[in-house]
């Protein structure tokens, strides 16, 4: 089930304990505890050290077998890093480690009230963009980001407290972050980029 993190690497050395061991989760891969709150500097360091060990550039002159392994191991490290570095993806991944699908439609469906509110925001943003009202657009984006951050803080509390209720909130969080990114793109288009 949930990785207890941290110590796995030293326990399992030396036989086939590497990046390609599929029973190892992303946290174990980097020797980190499976918590939502991660030490960003430690994650980055572990990722880089791992890439230094497995990156295909290290095996450019090696045989095909070693090259193929390097590609797979390096890709695995990239995938794990990409997931753990992004807070929303990390939350979803933690849920999945607990056997919960963050995107499951059964009991996490976003409420009509929530969706209506986001639809209204999107429309307001389009209107602000059409009217070249940069200030209104910026205010809207700030508003969405603030709400997303608040949900993120709540998710952090719930996840590290082992609460299943994190799931619907993670979905809302994902939705709001996507909305904010979409509005940022709209703002950039408007700014002529």
């Amino acid at each position, binding site marked *: 089930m949930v990785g207890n993190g941290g110590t796995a690497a030293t326990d399992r050395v030396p036989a086939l304990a590497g990046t*390609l061991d599929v029973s190892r989760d992303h946290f174990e891969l980097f020797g980190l505890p499976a918590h939502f709150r991660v030490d960003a500097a430690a994650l980055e360091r572990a990722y880089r050290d791992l890439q230094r060990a497995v990156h*295909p*550039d290290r095996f*450019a*002159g090696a045989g095909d077998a*070693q090259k193929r392994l*390097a590609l797979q191991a390096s890709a695995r490290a990239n995938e794990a890093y990409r997931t753990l570095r992004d807070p929303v993806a990390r939350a979803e991944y933690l849920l999945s480690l607990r056997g919960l699908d963050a995107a499951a439609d059964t009991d996490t469906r976003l409420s009509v009230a929530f969706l209506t509110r986001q639809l209204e925001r999107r429309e307001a943003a389009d209107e602000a963009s059409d009217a070249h009202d940069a200030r209104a657009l910026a205010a809207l984006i700030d508003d969405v980001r603030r709400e997303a951050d608040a949900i993120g803080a709540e998710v952090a509390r719930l996840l590290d407290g082992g609460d299943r209720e994190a799931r619907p909130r993670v979905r809302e969080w994902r939705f709001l972050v996507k909305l904010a990114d979409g509005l940022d793109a709209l703002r950039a288009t408007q700014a002529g980029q």
Partner: protein
Amino acid sequence: MTLFRISEPDAAPLPHATRRAVGIDLGTTNSLVATVRDGSAVVLPDAAGRRLVPSVVRYGERAVDVGHGALAHAAEDPHNTIASAKRLMGRGLDDVPDERRDAYRFIAGEGIVRIATRDGAKTPVEVSAEILKELRIRAEAALGGPVEAAVVTVPAYFDDAQRQATKDAATLAGLPVLRLLNEPTAAAVAYGLDNAAEGTYAVYDLGGGTFDISILRLTRGVFEVLATNGDSALGGDDFDHRVFCWALEAANLPPLSPPAARSLMAKAREAKEMLTLHDAAPLVAVLADDARLDLTLTAQTFADITRTLVAKTLAPVGRALRDAKLTPADIKGVVLVGGATRMPQIRRAVGEFFGQAPLTNLDPDEVVALGAAIQANKLAGNRESDDWLLLDVIPLSLGIETMGGLVEKIVPRNSTIPVVRAQEFTTFKDGQTAMALHVLQGEREKVADCRSLARFELRGIPPMTAGAARIRVSFDVDADGLLSVSAREQTTGVEASVVVKPSYGLTDAEIARMLEDSFAHAADDASARALAETRVEAERIVAATESALASDAALLQADERDAIDRALNEIRPRIAGDDRAALAAAVAALNAATEGFAAKRMDRGVARTLTGKRIDALDSP
């Protein structure tokens, strides 16, 4: 913050022979080859001391001319003298803009562009291969033997088809390519943005026909590309073309014949180059009896007529920053790369955008080849102690066609490579044994708005009732940024065979045929050449295996060790022999015998990393 070149300490001569490694910048306008000699990267000049090879190929009456010789005949023999072939790599005729259609005799048809020459139909891949061959010969003369390791650079914004075309050209030219390296990343390496220069840098690379912007973060010897963007059909050539159009109009010239047009293009380029250091440049020529030119182009006019081109480079810069979630203020330094960045209006615009003067202390024409040489030297194993690492990204999203002509993204742009993504599919009909996947690259939602890369046909799916098969398709993007596809039916474990039909590329069979043709054509002994290449490969693998055994034999069980020793004993006498097929078989056998060893060594490396040992303490492979 000062940036400095990687200056390697007086390295002790390596105990074993240094492998001949080169870095090649295959440019739109000029190409060059560099190597690392006595610890520093140097460009290899020709006998006359010229460092740049114009990327021009002329299919002449008797021979193929490359470089200066070809360029000299461009105006008199325009249809057989191909310049800027890089712009056509991995492209179809539909991609060639109307104003460039008259330049050559393009052959109508689907797929990759073909040009009729007196030597027959030529693809841009073959034209590029001639340039690479010239550079290979130059390097071999300078290094005293065959090139054993090459790194060839490509624009960061090149898509899969353009990258594959470049790799195919290198194969045709007989170059052992260890890596395709992105040009801005190569420049960053050459600038030696190492431990001493930590922070986030932008590399603005405007070449003859391509534009790239890469945002890199440098931390403790790791060069991590955060985002890249660009335009693979925008470069210095376009600035020449603006001058050309301006001259046509200003001098009220009649329509020009192809040779006259080439002459005017050359004059336009000269004027552009002159304006780097002067405020005005003359354009004087007799192009034809009724077409006389006597104009002066001022720096101001030049800036005015190219304003939109400059703006066209800044839009991708903004997008790259946005993808990296950064603002111009976050950028510690801006490196200019590519001959076209000599234009004052570019330097001004980039300086204004980032709010700082760009860095230009290395020759913008040479910096990419120098970086590629440094990387080639490292990949060849000549500099094991170099503890730096490049982490690059894929520039454009990869996706597959789904219902209704829409694209489903599989690998998003700016994902760090290598990347492996799997997707599951099922069959539509009872007993279905094949399916096709249409792979596209681009950011838009509709198939029609993205670039078609290839159709992958999966064959040999075990017949089952509709919807019962579970076909797991793996999309692997390697460290060259090249995609490969493999597929396996999950319930039976049967591996499907994958046949690739590139949309704008050459099939493996076409490459093989071109290789044969080129051997026959050059009166080169095809089998001798093939044997020599297999020998290089065999020696490489034997050396790699021996050094792995020297440091890690303890990881092996007795029977595993025996199998590897047997494979080594099989291969050694064959290296000196003449039987290429037997040698190739022995290479394959050694590869197979070392598979488990490779896995153990990698695991051990990983385990050491995770238990906190410094990577410097690790063995070298």
